[in-house]
């Protein structure tokens, strides 16, 4: 058995049949982390001791006949944005370097309750603001396919660790593409559920109207397994929606014959990497060969999504991050004589460049005299972007497009040019603005042997359709089975 390739599904089958010990599996992952993570830097905190003791408990329960489901005894990672009781939660920032959470996020408590073994907290862009994992206070994460390349972001640690086999899967968050973009760049599956599907309680806030948690996995079925565990109404998050949660693994194998697949012409942007374009076009042909109907559609306001996002997200961030004042928790400057100094110095020393840039952008856009021109305008354009999708759903069941216009870029390539960096999310942002679910699944490799991602978007609360199309497509080429040599 190759630990680096093992899926949740395979691990849980073996564990259930008592052919694989959760303790040995956990120890094997910890050994891999010790060997490879010095270079990859995918974990901020490794929970070796608590992971082994959780695995020991799981093993006892299973040996006693109390098997509790497909995550029982399975080692997974958790982006360092989810709080976990008595464990550090840094959110990739100096601001929270020494913060230890007194409680569990709902996502954390649900995966704990399902019996998962949490290996550690995955590296990420600071406060989830970034597309390359280079804004982390704890150093950049490397792409396991090429150590000179970024893994994408902000869930770059989760994507790289999953691709490199330093966990079976990881939980991430996606505000403008932060699950799907790194999944594409690292060659794994990444699912952003519908806004409201998963509770945000205990997930450190960036842009509350856009943030959503979801899995990064080695297969589409694994994404469905995790979604089953984390979905559903939560009393601690008033934006979690009380709708029925289907068993997402149940209809994965359904026929996609006759399904209507929309191809938005605006997603094939100018300057797009030829290898990406070819791989995505080939994937569309493959999906058509399964009997689905391919229909060209238009989402005319796509080109306004980045601007809309870079108003809405910074505005919400400037408000959410106002709480970091050096008083109740988080970084406090060692040299402040008065309260004003305490606020200014703690924030200026505790936050990194990109976070400050977004706080400033949001504060400016919300300041007196600019509100109508920026904030209100962006909320009106949000309506237009949503309407684009609403119109599309009259003709198609799901939408298929590239996840990113290019493959993984070089470390340091875009750090000095914020706009260039922001544009790497040009194809993932509209989904967050509309609140719909989106998934990225591997669809081939470039001439440089870098992974390429296929994005599948669906109607609100219809994750089942996108999972079904992704699963059917995955079985044709099995791109997901390719793993990097470390």
């Amino acid at each position, binding site marked *: 058995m190759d630990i680096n390739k093992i899926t949740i599904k395979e691990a849980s089958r073996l564990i259930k049949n008592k052919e694989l010990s959760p303790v040995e599996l956990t120890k094997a992952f910890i050994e891999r982390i010790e060997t490879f993570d010095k270079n990859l830097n995918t974990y901020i905190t490794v929970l070796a001791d608590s992971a082994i003791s959780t695995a020991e408990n799981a093993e006892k329960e299973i040996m006693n006949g109390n098997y509790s489901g497909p995550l029982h005894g399975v080692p997974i990672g958790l982006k360092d944005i989810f709080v976990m009781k008595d464990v550090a939660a840094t959110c990739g920032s100096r601001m929270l370097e020494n913060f230890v959470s007194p409680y569990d996020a709902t996502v954390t408590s649900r995966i704990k309750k399902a019996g998962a073994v949490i290996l550690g907290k995955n590296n990420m862009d600071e406060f989830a603001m970034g597309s390359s994992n280079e804004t982390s206070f704890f150093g950049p994460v490397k792409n396991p396919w090429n150590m000179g390349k970024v893994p994408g972001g902000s869930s770059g640690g989760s994507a790289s660790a999953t691709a490199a086999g330093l966990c079976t899967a990881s939980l991430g968050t996606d505000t403008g593409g932060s699950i799907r973009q790194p999944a594409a760049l690292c060659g794994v599956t990444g699912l952003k559920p519908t806004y409201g599907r998963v509770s945000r309680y205990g997930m450190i806030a960036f842009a509350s109207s856009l943030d959503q948690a979801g899995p990064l996995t080695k297969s589409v079925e694994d994404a469905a397994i995790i979604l089953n565990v984390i979905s559903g109404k939560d009393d601690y998050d*008033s934006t979690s929606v009380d709708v029925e949660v289907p068993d997402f693994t149940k209809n994965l194998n359904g026929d996609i014959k006759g399904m209507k697949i929309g191809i938005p012409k605006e997603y094939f942007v100018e300057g797009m990497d030829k290898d990406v374009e070819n791989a995505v076009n080939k994937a569309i042909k493959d999906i058509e060969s399964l009997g689905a109907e391919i229909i060209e559609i238009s989402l005319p306001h796509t080109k306004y999504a980045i601007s809309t996002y870079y108003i809405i997200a910074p505005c919400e961030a400037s408000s959410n991050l106002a709480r970091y004042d050096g008083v*109740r928790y988080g970084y406090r400057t060692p040299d402040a004589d008065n309260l004003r100094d305490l606020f200014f110095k703690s924030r*200026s020393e505790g936050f990194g460049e990109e976070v400050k840039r977004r706080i*400033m952008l949001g504060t400016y856009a919300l300041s007196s005299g600019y509100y109508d021109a920026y904030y209100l305008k962006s909320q009106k*354009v949000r309506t237009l972007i949503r309407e684009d999708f609403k119109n599309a759903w009259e003709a198609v069941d799901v939408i298929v497009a590239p996840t990113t216009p290019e493959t993984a870029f070089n470390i340091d390539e875009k750090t000095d040019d914020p706009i260039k960096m922001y544009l790497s999310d040009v194809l993932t942002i509209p989904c967050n603005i509309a609140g719909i679910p989106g998934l990225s699944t591997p669809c081939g490799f470039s001439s440089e042997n870098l992974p390429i991602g296929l994005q599948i978007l669906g109607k609100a609360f219809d994750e089942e359709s996108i999972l079904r199309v992704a699963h059917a497509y995955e079985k044709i080429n099995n791109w997901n089975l390719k793993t990097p040599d470390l």
Partner: protein
Amino acid sequence: MKISKQEVLNTAELARLDFKDSHLEKFTEQLGRILEYIENLNELNTDDIEPTFHVLELSTPLREDKVLQLITSEEALQNAPEKVDDFFVVPKVIED
């Protein structure tokens, strides 16, 4: 330039952030370019468009008025940079 150094300084005051002089130049330039980029929204006439502040129709959920102890005050204070008894400590605010 979409934004002046003075506007950046005014915004920094509102955001409770300090910028060193050496940094201010670069930061002003970058913010200016981002603001220029997002200008493309003005190509759209949105006079008759309703804003979407949130994708969900939110209402205020109610629950029974019952005390729930989620964390203890000790836990709430465990991450305080400085504390005395049950209080967070800050530099003196009131003049002598």
